[in-house]
């Protein structure tokens, strides 16, 4: 097994294992209503560069899931956008929050993981 294949295989532990890895329940809903449930890594804050070139920390969840665990991979060309439901905190039993998957997204061609950047979704008035 070469290093790339080994790294992909390791995702079953590092990304998906809820006991020894970073695994948290992630639910994806495709534009045509298909629900995909996997385990993945959830980070609740990320670093962005603002208009003046400064790096700032913003509240923007980023979800990383193993591509080979998905029955369908989200694409930037999908319309409407995918939904993603994640726990509001890493504590077991936490409430579940719903987001839309933002474009652009990483589709996992390099090392086998897909990184999804989430945007807030709210009930229309």
């Amino acid at each position, binding site marked *: 097994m070469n290093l790339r294949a080994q790294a992909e295989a390791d995702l079953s532990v590092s990304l998906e294992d809820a006991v020894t890895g970073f695994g948290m329940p992630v639910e994806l*809903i495709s534009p*045509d209503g298909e629900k995909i449930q996997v385990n993945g890594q959830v980070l609740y804050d990320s670093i962005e560069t603002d208009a003046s070139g400064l790096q700032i920390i913003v509240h923007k969840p980023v979800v990383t899931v193993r591509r080979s665990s998905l029955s369908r991979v989200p694409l930037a060309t999908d319309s*409407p956008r995918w939904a993603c439901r994640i726990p509001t905190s890493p504590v077991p039993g936490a409430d*579940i929050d719903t987001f839309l998957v933002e474009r652009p997204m990483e589709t996992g061609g390099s090392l086998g993981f897909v990184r999804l950047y989430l945007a807030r*979704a709210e*009930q*229309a008035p």
Partner: protein
Amino acid sequence: MMFRTLKASVVSLLGLAAGGRFRVVGYQPQGAEAEEVKGDLRLVQVFFSGGQIPKSGGGSAGPVAHNVTVKIELTAAKASEGELAPLVNPASTPVEFAAALASFTSAAELAADSMDELIDIVFQILMDGRNIDLGLDPGDVSNRWIERIDKGEPSPRGELVVISGSMDLTCRVSEALLGDAGVPSDPDLGAAYGELELNMPDSDSADAAPAAIRGGGI
């Protein structure tokens, strides 16, 4: 100077008319979280951005005309909005999920609409005939005008989309020349530091240094 009174008055005028539709501050914050300007927390920043004092607009000892530009910066943020209920209901069918996803309006579109509305509100408040004096006494302000409106592009910031805009409010005020005679510095402090910090010729003698350097004031 009068421009400071004017800026405070514009802040007060907008604040009193806001009615929960936006917030007003009289300074430029050092960046704001998107959550801080979301929805009706839309932010209006009022600050003096510059002025012109034509030489022909007054005497050397009397009041002078000051053509003031007050910058009004606007910031808003929105999330995507749609039918959320089916997405959070585990019993929803795929058809209901798909319909719910299709119902969402993009945050960029909503943010742009929110900014258009904010520009409209602020413009109407400032250009209202009843506010021709911008909250000051009649005659204190003339030539009130919103000379320019700019609107930025929506951009993602965190999990929201943020948009900014600005207005240039111009008017003319009269500045009194009150003068400033300066503030005398502490004589003891001057004696202690005045001669030490400056590389003056003949600094051996305290009398050789000008009075201002010895701490005697200007």
